[in-house]
Structures are given as structure tokens and as C-alpha cells.
């Protein structure tokens, strides 16, 4: 396994022997990472959701904590149906306890509500 804790990128050997996990190589932080990767890999998921009435059509979001890796596509499916109404502030919790994981969905950008007569503009 490639360790990605620091830029050195060590290789860590992982072997499952009955109930024990044997790790070879890497530093203590790396071994901790490898253990986590083998037992319950998680990732912070970032994506966008639809936002209505805002200056831009997509609201960037993140999970509040690392989310179980094997359920990421299930999460994406759930978020596809989500619609948020502007305005939204950065850091605002949009959905609590995503799919029962205890992880929340958080806005990562402040999006104002578009006033009457104002044009929406994408512009990065």
C-alpha cells in the first residue's frame, strides 16, 4: 500500500493473519493510516448540489468529516436529489447525519440570493 501521510510516499506491507493485521514499513503515523485504510477507509467527499435563486447554479459542499469510502456512490445518489435555496453561508450545515453515518453536509461557499432583475452569472 502507498502511504500518503507525507510526501515521502513509503510502501507499507499489509498482511491479515487470522485476527491480526501485520504491517511492515512506514512510520507510526503511516502505520496508523494503513490500519485505518484496511479496517474502515474513509474520505472527505466534496461535490456540488443544486442551488435555487442564487448567483450561481451550483453550491460546492463537503462532508463535515471523512465518510465511509464504500458508501460514496450511495451518497452521490442521495445528493443528486438535493436542492438548496439561496442564500447560503459558508460553513452552514445543509443536511445532518448523512445516510445515518453521523457525518453532516456543509456548504463551502457563501452564495447570495439573486435580487429581482439581477442576472445570474456563473463566472468562476
Amino acid at each position, binding site marked *: 500500500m*502507498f502511504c*500518503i501521510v507525507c*510526501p*515521502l*510516499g513509503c510502501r507499507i506491507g499489509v498482511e491479515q493473519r487470522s485476527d491480526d493485521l501485520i504491517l511492515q514499513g512506514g512510520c507510526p503515523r503511516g502505520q496508523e493510516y494503513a490500519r485505518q485504510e484496511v479496517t474502515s477507509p474513509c*474520505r*472527505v*467527499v*466534496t*461535490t*456540488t448540489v*443544486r442551488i435555487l435563486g442564487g*448567483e*450561481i*447554479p*451550483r453550491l*460546492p459542499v*463537503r462532508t463535515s468529516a471523512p465518510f465511509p*469510502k464504500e458508501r*460514496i*456512490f450511495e451518497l*452521490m445518489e442521495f445528493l443528486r436529489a438535493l436542492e438548496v435555496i439561496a442564500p447560503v453561508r*459558508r460553513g452552514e450545515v445543509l443536511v445532518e447525519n448523512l445516510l445515518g453515518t453521523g457525518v453532516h453536509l456543509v456548504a*463551502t*461557499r*457563501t452564495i447570495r440570493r439573486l435580487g429581482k432583475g439581477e442576472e445570474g*452569472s*456563473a*463566472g*468562476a
Partner: protein
Amino acid sequence: MPRSVDAEVVVIGGGPAGMAAALSAWEWGARRVFLLERNPHLGGILNQCIHPGFGLRLFGEELTGPEYAERYIEALEKTRVEVLTDTTVLEVGGDRHVVAVNREGVWIFRARTVVFAVGCRERTRGMIRLPGTRPAGIFTAGCAQYLVNIEGYLPGKRAVILGSGDIGLIMARRLTLEGVRVEAVVEIRPTLSGLLRNYVQCLLDFRIPLLLSHTVLEVLGKERVEGVVVGRVDEKGNPVGEKRLLPCDTLLLSVGLVPESELLKKSQMPLCPSSGGPFVDEDFACDVPGFFACGNVVGVFDLVDYVTESALRIGRRIGENEGHTPPRFILSPREGVATLFPQRIRRGKDGFLYVRPKEGLRKARLSLIHNGKEFHSLTFPLCRPGEMVRLDLAQVSWPEEEGEVQVVLRGEKHVDLL
């Protein structure tokens, strides 16, 4: 009639470099500071970089691009820096006049200081040799990122990515999450260009194949991309061995970034051949008095934290207003160094030197050499072309005699799968 405006500082570009430059000028006492941005929002490329990993060095936490940008947008709101969005700069003169246009018309700024913070641009199909037809469906990775993350459109349904730079890897994951089938990431070199971390979390996590020492030999399709022919290449990039067809409707190019030098050329600024940007000193002052440049227009940085760091140095220099003395040292890239900046040292008291390695090295040693003698060095367990080496200039004791300094990176050649 154009509006004529007297300005102390005009910053061109409202991305991370421009925002930090304007803030720093303001904090060091400059007034009548203008920040000109061609898009409707400040933030630049950060707004479309919705993935985490920004700010680890500067804030000790992993922010997404929009979160990082908003910290500076909010800081600017607390100042009286005049932010003009939807404003495009057309021309910068050697006498420091800046011509800009927006909905209100044409503006001519007469500035005491001009800061170029216009960033970099992606290399396009025209800049690499990409044989085959010219159908719709070929995008730069950053353009696709804009379409997906800002506009909410997918570029296609089945994609191949050429180039293993970080934007390409990030887009491989992004497209996969949005339901696009990513057939492969194809890299002409024998090693990964982007970070190992992105290889693991963007490709391995989703079982996307990485084809090293491969390239796209032909684009197929008339109206729309129908597939690409990929094949193995040798060290010189010439095709050897088998070819195969990857059916796809989309080809993303992640084949490098170059400083945006159009305005610089118009203002007759001398450009550095190895970085593609202007020559700068450790405060990011250009060779021509009254001009500064910071961020990716100077040379392509790999962390936004360093872009901000470079831009924050500008204010003090403007504030001290000590005049423009000739540089004491000229740094030139030599063995093992692809590019470096700053290329000039004026005071040599503080600041940072950023060096991009030419190749992967283990037990690497960065040396500063003057008159054939090494007067400063720094060692690293590992360096790779994808990650710049950064040297704290406050640690350097400069030689008495001024002149050229050669910058050299030596070590054991690090040949690895990645």
C-alpha cells in the same frame, strides 16, 4: 470619454495572488488601491477547485478552494481596497498606465505601482502534437472542471484523460463521482506528474487505470470524439509496440500550465525563458521599477499557500518605497533544476526561493554556488518534479561579492513506478 483615475496601487487579477497583494499593500499603508478582476466574483481558479487540500501550510487545516478564497474575500471587505469585478484589463503601459473596460466604460488608471497577478493558463491541444480529427469533445481539464463545478454541466459520458498532472487526476475522480466513465489516465512520461496522494485517492480508489509511457496517438470521430488510439512510447515520446483503441466521447487534456504573459509582453517586460514569467526579486518586484508580479504569472507554483506567501511580500516593499536598486545577485538554474524564482536577490535578508526539480532524486542536495564555491546548501530525503523545493532565504549568508549564483540540485536518481 474614459475615466481617468490616479491610483497608488493597481492589482490586476482577483485570484489568490491578487487578493493577497492588495491586502498586503493596504496593510502596509497604501491607499487608493484598486483590485481589478475580469470575472463577476473574486477568487480566481479557487472557486472551481472544490476539492480539499488548500491552506495546510498557511492555516494548518485542509480547506476547499472556495473556503480558502472566502477568507481573503472577507479580509478585503474589512479594508477600503476598491474591488472592480467584471473588469477586464486591455493594456498596461511601461509608464504604468492601465487601460481597463467594464459596464461603466473605459478606465485609465495612472498608477504608481502595478501588480501583475494574472495567473497561468492551461496548455491546449495546439501546444502539444495531437494527431487525428478535430471533433467536439476535447477540453482542457480545467475547462471541464469549470463546466462541472460552476455551471453544472458534464462534458460527456465516457472520458479519457491525457496527462497525469493534479488537475487531470482530480477531474478523473470528479467525473467518476458524477457518473462519467473514465477509461484511463494516459501519461507520456514513465512517472506520474501529480502528487502520489492524488494517484491513490483519485485513481486507485475508483480503479481508474494509469497508463505510464503511453500517449494518445490519434483522435477519432467527425462531429464528436468517438475514441482515441493510445500506445506505448519510448523515452523520446516515439510510438513503440502495440496500439489500442479506447472508445470515448470526451478527451481531457491535463498537459501543463504556463504563466499568462500577454499583458506583460505588451508592457515590454523582460521574460525569464525557464519560468515563462517576468524576472522578479525576493519581494516579487520586476526588473522595471514600479512593477510587481506574484503568484502563477511568475512561474507555476504547486501550492496556493505559496502563491499567497509570494503576494504578501509585496506590500512591505511598496510601503517602504526605498527605490529601485540593482539586484545584488542573479540566480540561474543549472544541473537538476527545471526552473526557479525569484531569479534576483536585492536584500537577501528574507523571503523564499522556490526551485522545481528536473527529475526525481533521493538524498537530494540543493546548492547555491558563487564563483565555483558552494556557500549554502539544503538536503532533502526525496524530491520530485511535481513538488517544488523551498529554501528559506533568511538562512542564507550571502557572499561579499555580488554577481551570478548558480543553483544546482544533485542526488541519487530516483526511478520508481511513480
